[in-house]
């Protein structure tokens, strides 16, 4: 390999690394070695090579990070091209992570980008432990929850119950919708975490079933009818393939028929796509600014050249620009990061089924399994393995205590595919 003139290339970082600052954390001391750490030691993981991911990769390469890994299982779609600038028309259908990595390596000589086309759930803690900082540019809640919980489970505590900083992986998380976006820093077990803020997320736009079935008024109601009622009636065992023009056209035609019969105007193919795929508007500029804020935090976390964000940066650009930076506090009852939660009092007459339904609703779980910690007995688990436990659902909490499944004061371990670790719920049966 030819020698690179790195000192000159990254000269703009010198003033940050070699000069004193009143705004840097106490740990910071101006030092020539910071560049070496950044160039030769720092390993960073980028999750997602989409709108945010492309930007994040570019920003990292131009901030002096030279060992980058990227994970994304998606392939390139033509609707990505208005913002995912490492892809061209000829790349449609190829893996995002691989095309993005190759582009960055080609443009930024000396930068190594390793691409993976797996799901993030395919990797274990040992894999994630390799990195100094992890940046997520994801478009879904499930992956964020999973990653957040995994990074929390990797933290070790000292005798005083304080997190061992060496085991704390900083997670920088970005997200956008239209002209809005946010960048945040999660220090597992030290700051508020993704799970803590789950309940503050806006609810998805949904239409009441009775409106869709009986009193449609908007074109959206007719599209939903075609999608959730007519399709399953017509195609008994086939799911809608949202990427298939045939399937989408079928829904569009049925929606149009229904709208005509009610004199409702405005069903178009464009709107049908928007409703069925729940399309969120996405533009290059918002991705750019959110990613830049994320990578700027990565640079600070890696070198201490300035203080880290505390801990949530929100940007709203639709009407003038309004931004806010504030610490998202830990939720004392967070399933993932709370150290000791208050016991919740549960009526003895409550059925296990009801108790489980409440948990599922409260913590947005898909199909939780329950085990009592004191007795190590499974209260409920789904699937063939849990056939026997199904009858427990009809028992009351008091009956479960009487039959020795559960202590009056106990910890119920909750497992669910949404979260890679065991969550604990402290209960007191009355």
């Amino acid at each position: 390999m030819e020698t690179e003139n790195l000192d000159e290339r990254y000269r703009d970082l010198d003033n940050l690394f070699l000069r004193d600052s009143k705004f840097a954390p106490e740990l910071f001391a101006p030092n020539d070695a910071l560049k070496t750490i950044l160039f030769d030691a720092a390993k960073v993981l980028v999750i997602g090579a989409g709108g945010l991911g492309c930007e994040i990769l570019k920003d990292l390469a131009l901030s002096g990070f030279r060992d980058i890994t990227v994970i994304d299982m998606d392939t390139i779609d033509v609707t990505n091209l208005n913002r995912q600038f490492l892809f061209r028309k000829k790349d449609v259908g190829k893996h995002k992570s691989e095309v993005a990595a190759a582009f960055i390596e080609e443009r930024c000589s000396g930068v190594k980008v390793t691409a993976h086309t797996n799901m993030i759930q395919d990797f274990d803690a040992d894999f994630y432990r390799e990195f100094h900082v992890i940046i997520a540019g994801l478009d879904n809640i499930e992956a964020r929850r999973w990653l957040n919980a995994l990074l929390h489970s990797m933290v070790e505590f000292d005798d005083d119950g304080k997190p061992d900083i060496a085991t704390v992986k900083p997670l920088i998380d970005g997200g956008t919708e239209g002209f809005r976006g946010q960048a945040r820093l999660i220090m597992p077990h030290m700051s508020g975490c993704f799970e803590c803020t789950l309940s503050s997320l806006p609810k998805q736009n949904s239409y009441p079933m009775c409106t869709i079935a009986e009193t449609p008024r908007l074109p959206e109601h007719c599209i939903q009818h075609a999608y959730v009622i007519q399709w399953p009636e017509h195609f008994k065992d086939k799911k809608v393939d949202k990427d298939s023009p045939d399937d989408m056209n079928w829904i569009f035609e049925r929606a149009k028929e229904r709208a005509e019969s009610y004199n409702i105007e405005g069903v178009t193919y464009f709107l049908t796509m928007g409703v069925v795929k729940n399309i969120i508007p996405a533009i290059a500029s918002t991705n750019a600014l959110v990613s830049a804020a994320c990578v700027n935090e990565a640079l600070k976390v890696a070198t201490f050249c300035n203080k880290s964000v505390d801990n949530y940066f929100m940007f709203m650009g639709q009407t003038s620009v309004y931004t806010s930076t504030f610490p998202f506090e830990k939720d004392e009852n967070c399933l993932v990061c709370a150290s000791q939660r208050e016991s919740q009092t549960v009526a003895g007459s409550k059925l296990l089924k009801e108790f489980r339904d409440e948990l599922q609703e409260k913590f947005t779980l898909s199909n939780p399994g329950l085990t009592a910690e004191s007795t190590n007995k499974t209260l409920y688990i789904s699937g063939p393995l849990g056939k026997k436990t199904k009858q427990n659902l009809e028992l009351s909490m008091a009956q479960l205590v009487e039959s020795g499944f559960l202590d009056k004061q106990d910890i119920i371990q909750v497992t669910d595919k949404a979260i890679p670790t065991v969550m604990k719920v402290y209960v007191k049966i009355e």
Partner: protein
Amino acid sequence: MTDNKYDRQLRLWGADGQKRLSEASILLINAPAAGTETLKNLILPGVGFITVLDDKLVEERDLGTNFFVTKDSIGKSRAEITMELLTELNEDVKGAHIHESPSKYINEKNLEFFKQFTLIIACDLTDAEIDILCDIGDELGLGLIFLRSYGMIGYLRLYKKEHACIQSKHADKELDDLRLAEPFEELEKYALEFEMSSLGSLEHGHTPYVIILIKALHKWKEAHDGKMPSNFEEKDAFKATIKEMARDFSKEANFNEAIENAYKAFSYESVPYEIQQILDNPKADSKEFHSNFWTLVSALKQFIAENGCLPVSGKVPDMTATSDFYITLQKIYQEKAKEDREKIKEIITKQADEKGLMEMLFEDEDIKVFCENARNLEVTRMENYKQELENPNTEDISAEFFDPDSSVQWYVAVRCAEAFRTTNSRYPGETKEQIESDVAEMSALVPDLLKKLGADESFEYNYDHIHEIARYSNSTLHNIGALLGGVGAQEAVKLITEQYTPLNHTYIFDGAHCKSQVFNP
């Protein structure tokens, strides 16, 4: 499957916004990261044409901060290389480059040159150059975006003397225009004749809240000398009458909606204050042609004089209702909206005749969009740069000095750094040895500046900000450039599409704390 690569943005600014974007021509003056990143974020969504004006050659240092240069382009024209690598992003976009000194074009006030552009984005200019470009912008009615960065600090200054916007798409405003307080004839007739007592329980619980509110208000006014509920007690009493109209309030969502939406009737103004201000502008009465926007406003003014209210928008939000009730109601609003649009159209033609102008070419769709948004029109006026430096508007910024966490500290530091640049023709702290004396020189400027900005005497400036900006000196960090490129492109899209509200007029990003703020001195 959609094969439109612009699908995800059309859902924001629609086909007319996209058309404007595709017809825009953008000039970039100087091409460091902040500039090329802004262009990137405009090229991807399909801006029409870009021109890069820069006289520098690509250096090794550009490779560390700018994505749109390559190793083998060192020594070549930065304007040419960045333009080529930028336009390669989107085949719909064409570009040109000019390898010449921007100062020449600016100092010569070359109007012939600048008038070919829709918008100018300029990086790292001095105060004097910005001042001249603002004059050029005034003369040509151009939008200008100035970008500067100082290490972790990013600065963006927007300037357009007057920016008119029809589709403001306010994040917190509703587009509906239900006329509950002053229903037009057809609507009132329909509502008052709507027979509820004979309805079955499904229909009763699905009678649109619009009908319930108009009925209830009509009854209230009859009993109260034709007056609306005005104080808290009366409003409560009015809501109680709605509750009484329900058969089972706990189950009838429509009656609950009627109470939730009663404020729309209480707070109704036939012509909102902000719109009246626009109508009061002399351009609304002018006999000359100013722009399509003012032609439409002029017609609107005439419409209000004749009808006493704004044209009906025709937008009806979803509400609990049977399909039939809703569609019938929607039709009543839409018919009225259509009627109002026709009147506006006639006025436009008549006014064009009177002014001896050729009839303006408005598509029906343009008039529709205008009428739908008549309650949300916006005209933004921005402070001129020279005015800001010499005699700033202290109305809002003076309050910032009571907030110890305000980024106004950085605004002051940036102003001092630029004043230093003007005097010394270099950035403060370019070498380590200069820092101490440069900090002293900038610090000496602070007290006068604070006074100018209307800071309270009790305010104690934190001079660490001056020290920090000297620490950063002329360092260009890619992330700060990329952030400015994101914010700058959002603002450019707003100016070009004439949708959404642009920021007015200065945005500062503090990367040292990841905070940012808008100022308008």
